[in-house]
C-alpha cells in the first residue's frame, strides 16, 4: 500500500463512523443506502486524494450532500426506498426524554423531498450556516432559507403534535 493509500485508509477508518451518521440521515434512515452513498463518495475521493486541498473531512461532507441530491434525483425515477419498517429498529423512548423518537423522526425525514431533507440535515445536524449550506448544494441562500422554512413546517405536520410545536425556524 502506498503512503497516499495509507493516509486515505486512516482517514476512512477514523472518520467513516461519523460520516456514516450524516449519510444515514440524508438517506432517511436507510442504513444500506447510507453505506452505499458514503462508499461511493469515498471511492471518488480516493481517486483524487492527493489533489484535495485542505482538510478532507469538510470536502467529504460537501460531497456527501451533493451526492445525496444527485442520488435522489436518479432514484426517484427508479425504485422506491426500502420500507421504513424494515430499516428501523424497535421503537424507542420519545418526547418524555426530551427528544423525538427515532422512528417518528426518520419517518418524517423520509417524507420530505430529498433536497429539503438535505438542507434540514445540513442545517440542524451538521450545523452549517445558510451560506455554507448554499455553497455545499450549489444554490442560493434564498433557496436554503425557503427550504428550511418549508422543511420545518412539513416536519411539524408530520411529527405528532406534542413535539411538532417545538420546531421553529432557525434564525
Amino acid at each position, binding site marked *: 500500500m502506498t503512503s497516499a493509500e495509507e493516509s486515505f485508509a486512516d482517514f476512512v477508518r477514523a472518520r467513516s463512523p461519523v460520516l456514516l451518521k450524516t449519510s444515514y440521515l440524508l438517506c432517511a434512515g436507510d442504513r444500506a443506502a447510507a453505506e452505499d452513498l458514503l462508499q461511493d463518495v469515498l471511492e471518488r475521493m480516493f*481517486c483524487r486524494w492527493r489533489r484535495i486541498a485542505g482538510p478532507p473531512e*469538510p470536502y467529504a461532507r460537501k460531497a456527501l450532500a451533493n451526492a445525496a441530491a444527485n442520488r435522489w434525483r436518479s432514484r426517484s425515477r427508479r425504485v422506491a426506498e426500502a420500507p421504513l419498517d424494515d430499516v428501523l429498529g424497535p421503537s424507542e423512548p420519545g418526547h418524555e426524554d426530551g427528544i423525538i423518537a427515532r422512528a417518528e423522526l426518520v419517518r418524517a425525514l423520509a417524507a420530505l423531498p430529498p433536497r429539503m431533507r438535505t438542507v434540514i440535515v445540513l442545517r440542524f445536524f451538521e450545523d452549517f450556516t445558510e451560506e455554507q449550506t448554499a455553497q455545499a448544494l450549489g444554490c442560493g441562500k434564498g433557496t436554503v432559507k425557503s427550504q428550511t422554512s418549508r422543511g420545518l413546517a412539513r416536519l411539524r405536520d408530520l411529527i405528532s403534535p406534542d413535539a411538532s410545536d417545538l420546531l*421553529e425556524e432557525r434564525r
Partner: protein
Amino acid sequence: MTSENDLLERSLRHAVTDVDAPADFADRVLVGGRRRRFRRRAGMATAAAAVTVLVGGLAASTPAWLAGPDSTTPADSRMSEPTRGDLAKDAAFLDKVLDRWRTESLTRLDRVAYEGKDCWAFTTPAHVHWAGNTPAGPAALVLQPARTTPGTCRIEPGTPTLLGLVGTDGKDNATHVLDVVTTGEDYTSSEVFAFGPKAATLIATEASGAKVVSPRIEVGSDGRKARRVQPLEFHDGVAVHQMAAGTYVEREFVVSAEVPDAQGRTKKHPLWISKSTHDHYTPQPQLDWPKLRGDLGGSALDAPARRMLVWNALRQSGMTDPFGPTIEDENGANWMISAGLPDGRTVIMTERFGGSSAHLYAILVPGSKEAQEKLARGERVPHTVVYGGKHDPRSGYVAVRLPDGQGWVVASYGATLRYNLGGLWVTAQGDAALLPAAATHLEITKPGAVAVVVPLT
C-alpha cells in the same frame, strides 16, 4: 439558538447514536477506490498512447520503438543493463526471485483491476535490475514490461513498465512479491519501498531522485517543528537505508528528492513510499470533536478560510512540518475554537500532530475580517502563536492560557463547563468557552459522569 432548534438537533443526534460503520467498510472503500482509479489510469494511458502514435507517424523517419501491437511505450533502458547488487551473481537467488515474480505478480496486479482476471500480460521476460542483502533479508527489484488485456477486463489498453520488490514476507518468512509500482507516470508511486519488520528498511532507486530521508518530526519546547535528515547513499543504482526502530509506528518518516534549505525546509512534497508490511500504523492521537458550542464571538471567516489562516500563521512561525510545503501535508485535528478577545483580537485554537503526540496551538490575530483574510491568503499580518504544549487527548478537555491577560480558552466536547472566579462557580455557555484570566479552576461534567475539577495554572 432556541431550545426548539435544540430539540431537533438532539433528536437528529439521538437517531444516529447506534449508527456505526461495519468493520470491513474501509477495506470495501479501498477496493472500490482502486477499481475506479485503475479505470481512470487506463483511460489516461490510452490517451498517452494515441499521442505517441500520432507523433511517431508525423516523424516518418523515426521507426516505431517496437513492432506489433505492444509498441506504444519504449522499454525502460535499465532492461538492457546487467543485474547489479551484491547478490547479482547468486544464480539460485535470482532464479527464486524470477520464479516468485512469475507466479505471484499477475495475481497481485489483478487485485487493482476492475471486474476481471488476467488483466495484464507480460510482453517480454522480466529482468532483475538489482539483487542484494538488506537488513530485512535478501531482496530484489524486478523490471517488467507489460500490457493490459482489455479483452478480458473492462480496461483500456496500456503498456506500462512495472517495478516489483521481491523479498522476505514477515508472514511466513519466505520470499514473495512484496509490492509493484508502475514507472514514469505522474500519479504512480515513486521507486521507493519500505518493507521488513515495522517497514524500517528503505530501498530507493537512483531513478526515483530520492536524496534524503527524515525519520520523524521533532517538536521543540516552543512548538516549532524541525526534521533531521540523513543522506541516502547509492551503490549499484540503489540506496538501502535502515531506519530506527519505531519510526514506522510514528509514521512521520519521509523521503525527499530535495535537500532542505538553510531553514531545514523543502519546497516539494516528499516522495510517495510504497509500504510493504503487515504492521499497522499507530493511529494519531486525536480528539474526535465534530462540533463545539459556545458563545465566543470569534472569526468572521468561514471554516476553510480559518484553516488556511491557522496553517499560514503556524507556517510563518515555523510550527508546521518543514517537509510539508502545502496545507495538504499538515496533520491536524478536525476541530477549531475561535473567540473574540477583550482587546479586540481574535483567537483560533486547534490541535496539531508531531513527534507522535498531539499539540495545542492558539493563534491570536487582529479582529478585522480584512486582516484575517490577508493571513488566510498567506500575506504577512502581525499575529501571535501561543504553543499550548503537548496534549493527551485521553484527558477529554483542552485549556490554554492566553497572553496579555486575555483569559483562557477551554473546551470539552459535550460537557457542561463551570469555572471558579473569586470563590464563586460560574456556568459557561456551551462546551467551549473563553474564561476570564482570573479564573482559577475549571469544572467539567460529561453526560452521565461525575464532575472533574481541573486547576487552571
